[in-house]
């Protein structure tokens, strides 16, 4: 008999906030970042327990469409004396992201979070560095994790792939962290305009073949993550991926975000994920 996977304790400590937009930055189209401010309530910092890889559900309430909130990784987080600033990094695709990109400072948005289970160290610490592999906007899930690794004194290379050069938006932020950790930024574009001409998994595979990495952490298009998982299993390197599924609610109420696992069961992307071990998921 199968046990329910969505019956565990809910993600701890999330709440639905009214956040205020403090900045909207437009990077080369279609990329943008929005910084949202959540005041402390009763002296309590609202995203204090937020871990890298967790996400929020939000929506620019211009009208009634789209109807459902959209999920966004917590890209960056800053805290001062009495507010928390949450930065999300978006790519305009449809109504949800279009709305967020059109926000202006001063507007309020609902902000539900922090949600889900973030990244955890895949392996017992080894001398080997890690590889973080981002496909385009998937990089949004990896900044906090890159910083966490750096703070723990672990080196990592940051692999950044996309179709064109503009898809490697915000690469300086990742390069800085990678360098500081003792690693480097490796880029690839399918168009050939920046870095390796081809898929980002190609330079990754070369490095894996040389036994360079102790762990892989990835977020991006499903095809990319599946390839990383395949490489991980081929070279016996453990790792994790931050998944994206359609989400109705973000907190376990709709059961819409099923992710098939190797054990034959479904997990909920919003509650059991979005970060899963590479070898748990049916790709």
């Amino acid at each position, binding site marked *: 008999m199968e046990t*329910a996977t969505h019956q565990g304790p809910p993600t701890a400590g999330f709440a639905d906030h009214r956040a205020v937009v403090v900045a909207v930055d437009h990077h080369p189209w279609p990329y943008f970042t929005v910084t949202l401010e959540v005041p402390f309530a009763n002296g309590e910092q609202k995203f204090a327990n937020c871990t890298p890889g967790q996400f929020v559900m939000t929506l620019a309430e211009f009208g009634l469409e789209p109807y459902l909130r959209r999920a966004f990784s917590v890209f960056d987080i800053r805290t001062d004396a009495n507010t928390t600033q949450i930065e999300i990094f978006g790519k305009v695709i449809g109504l949800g992201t279009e709305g967020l990109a059109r926000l202006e400072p001063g507007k309020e948005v609902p902000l539900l979070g922090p949600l889900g289970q973030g990244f955890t160290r895949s392996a017992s610490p080894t001398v080997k560095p890690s590889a973080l592999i981002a496909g385009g906007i998937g990089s949004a899930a990896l900044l906090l994790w890159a910083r966490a690794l750096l703070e723990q004194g672990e080196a990592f290379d940051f692999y950044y792939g996309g179709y064109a050069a503009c898809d490697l938006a915000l690469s300086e932020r990742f390069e800085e962290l990678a360098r500081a950790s003792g690693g480097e930024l490796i880029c690839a574009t399918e168009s050939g305009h920046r870095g390796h001409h081809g898929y980002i998994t190609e330079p990754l595979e070369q490095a894996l073949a040389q036994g360079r990495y102790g762990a892989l952490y990835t977020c991006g298009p499903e095809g990319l993550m599946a390839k990383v998982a395949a490489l991980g299993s081929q070279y016996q390197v453990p790792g994790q991926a931050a998944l994206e599924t359609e989400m109705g609610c973000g907190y376990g109420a709709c059961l819409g975000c099923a992710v098939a696992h190797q054990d034959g069961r479904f997990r909920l992307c919003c509650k059991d994920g979005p970060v899963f071990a590479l070898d748990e998921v049916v790709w």
Partner: protein
Amino acid sequence: MSTVDLSVKVGPLELANPVLSASGTFGYGLEFAPLTRLERFGGLVTKGLSLEPLRGNPAPRIFETRGGMLNSIGLQNIGIEAFLSDVLPGLADFPPKVVVNLFGYEREDYSTLAARVDAVEHVAAVELNVSCPNVKRGGIQFGHDPGQLEELVASVRKATSKPLIVKLSPNVTSPVALGKAARDGGADILSAINTVIGMAIDTRTRRPRLHTIKGGLSGPAIRPVAVRIVYDVAREVGLPVIGIGGAETADDVLEFMLAGASAVQIGTALFRDPMQPNRILQDLEQRLVSEGVGSVRELIGAINIE
């Protein structure tokens, strides 16, 4: 303190107010405890429960459409036993009445489930899902055939003395005929509607948006369909009705009640905003005060069609 009486009697079911959560949109209730003032709800309807746990359908399971969403969760659930042992005790701490939504493949599944909860104190009522479009066998056949529905309800009626709600499908030529069958089988209350069968295709990949190809449409897009069915069923069947379908504001709750509903379930709107039911109750109270209506019960079926 409010001077307005929000309490309703839905047949044998007494509720502190007419706002309930809809099955499948509120988890098992406790998921919402951090987000909303659970204690304000008139009632909670659980996710559909079956005898055994069900794993549900593969992804993708949901897709947003204009003013609504398609889902084909496939009745993933923890099973009745896990619900009764692990979840219900937690819900018992909250004032809202707990309605268990039951689903089976065979007629006996329903009566076994109903018998199982008959003696369970904190179960206030039973809602039969005979209209889920998202599973291959079972369920839906009962909801689309008056003869089978009457037999099914009659056998459940024998198994439990709890208030018995039958949830109607909108995907039939005559919801009224199904409502009458449920009544003749012994239902106390009808709830309407379940989701409308729909489908969407990703034109880039040419694949259906849902793994199961078709799914159930819910949300504000279907509210006019739901209001119409509630209106017809309330007038023609003679049982109290719980309105469901795209309700998101106090105004929508009033619309369903004027059409004939004694209470209203909130579903998809909870995803957009989990605090919505609390806001609805607040607005509802204000609205009644400003219109000088002493009890929300005065509004049930009070549409003016002269």
